[in-house]
């Protein structure tokens, strides 16, 4: 393999690598680099390869920020290290090695590059993809979950990925929460799938964020809890299906509020009933044994509490 050669080329003879899924840089984030380059110049050469079909034109492998800044700072030329043109798989693998850590690719960028790698190699196993790219398996798994989202949602995430986190509406962590909630909803209440497509549910849930109906992206965890309460018969299944459908249809409804109204009390009582059964089992095993002072005191207090509760209770409110 020929060794890389160093030279200087005009910035406009260089183009972005089409295998790099990064769309753009948040402009102000380049300020610090621009200050440094304006003072010292580019000390570490960009890594490029020459386009086989267009001699004199180069494609970036590494150094997008420096290149973008050099263009803005009016550099006549930039130092480059020219490497041989890689084949598409090599190109992608090298991009992963360069960018996933050093250049902080976002999860959506990793996902898009991973999709291309899977298409080129036919490889879909997490462990193999992790070996090829150097990404931890957890990252590969999360990236594959991002790829399961509808294409238009991936576009939304990708367009906002370079923005500061507080400026992003369509954040990847929002979609990971939505995807998990949708998946639990589908598994627990297949009737919901008959009424709404997966893409519809995801879109409607994302609209809650767009409309400002969420307090936090983790609000969707209450959707899973609601669906599981219906599946486990803690509350009437029809009631849960109606509540879930309303939650999907009305983008102004907040999941924790719906959960609180429909299921929270029943779920809490169900949990207490389970604990009461466990306590009963435990007490049964103590027959004929001497009880400690502490346990006797606790049990008396509990009996008073239980008597008061049963006398004051209006009846069976559970399913």
């Amino acid at each position, binding site marked *: 393999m020929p060794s890389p050669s160093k030279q200087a080329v005009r910035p406009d003879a260089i183009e972005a690598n089409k295998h790099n899924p990064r769309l*753009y840089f948040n402009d102000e984030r380049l*300020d*610090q680099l621009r*200050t*440094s380059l304006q003072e010292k110049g580019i000390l570490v050469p960009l890594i490029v390869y020459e386009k086989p079909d267009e001699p004199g034109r180069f494609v970036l492998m590494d150094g997008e920020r420096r290149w*973008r800044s050099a263009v803005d700072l*009016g*550099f006549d030329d930039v130092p480059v290290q020219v490497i041989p043109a890689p084949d598409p798989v090599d190109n992608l693998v090298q991009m992963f090695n360069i960018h996933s850590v050093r250049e902080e690719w976002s999860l959506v960028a990793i996902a898009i590059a991973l999709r291309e790698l899977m298409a080129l190699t036919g490889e879909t196993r997490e462990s193999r993809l*992790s070996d090829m790219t150097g990404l931890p398996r957890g990252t590969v798994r999360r990236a594959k979950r991002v790829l399961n989202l509808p294409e238009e949602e991936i576009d939304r995430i990708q367009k906002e990925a370079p923005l500061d986190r507080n400026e992003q509406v369509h954040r990847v962590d929002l979609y990971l929460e939505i995807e998990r909630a949708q998946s639990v909803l589908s598994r627990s209440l297949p009737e919901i799938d008959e009424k709404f497509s997966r893409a519809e549910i995801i879109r409607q849930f994302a609209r809650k964020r767009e409309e400002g109906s969420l307090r936090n992206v983790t609000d969707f965890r209450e959707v899973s809890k609601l669906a599981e309460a219906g599946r486990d018969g803690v509350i009437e299944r029809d009631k849960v299906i109606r509540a879930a459908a309303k939650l999907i249809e009305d983008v102004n409804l907040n999941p924790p509020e719906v959960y609180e109204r429909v299921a929270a009390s029943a779920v809490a009582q169900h949990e207490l009933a389970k604990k009461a059964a466990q306590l009963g089992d435990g007490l049964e095993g103590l027959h004929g044994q001497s009880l400690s002072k502490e346990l006797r005191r606790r049990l008396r207090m509990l009996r008073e509490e239980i008597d008061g509760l049963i006398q004051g209770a209006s009846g069976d409110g559970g399913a």
Partner: protein
Amino acid sequence: MTAELEDPRKTELRSRCEVAVEAAGFTVLQQRPLTPWPPDAGLKGALLGDVVGEDGRQHRDHYFVRVDGERALPEWLVSATEASFAMSGVRIIVVAENPGESLSAACAATGTGLARITELNHLELICEYGEPQQDAQATRFRKRARDVRRKMEAKAQLNTRKLEESYQETDAVTKQMAGHRRSAYLEPIENAIVVWRTWNEEMADRISEALASEDAAALDRIEADVLRGPEQ
């Protein structure tokens, strides 16, 4: 000049600025010229700008659009303005939709022109371009701020480089490990890299703000924080 990888908000602001400059009676130069810095400016590159407008006497206004008008003027633009005072027939004007106090104060203090672009794409001048009367104290303050920034950058670069090397080595020696065990080695290094990067960005912003407000006490605090480094 290519605009690949450019922030789309900047691309849009650039086009609006072109419309505004033309509306003000200037010719927008489609081939933006690279005007060399004076040799003693000590700056790399050349005076360019996002939009360049020229009047009938071939005086050129170099407009630099800023997407976030709340942020202080970055040092590279301060240095560009300082160098431009020794050049004839050029002005530097920063353009933002809603220039904040910090940006306005920095432009006024450094002599950088500042214009607000209206919804109807007109430019309203907020600060005139022109060499400010700087006293010796202000000059010393700027030099000190620059030194603090250099120290901070050197510290961040050194630490990030070390971590990157450590990541490469760990990556190589853990290749055969199961995913979760491997992540246990790699993730702390990744997290540490992110901590240093974030610290670097935050410090750079704080230095720019201290510069804009000429706040010596703030610079003292920043210098102490630079010595301490980020909380890990």
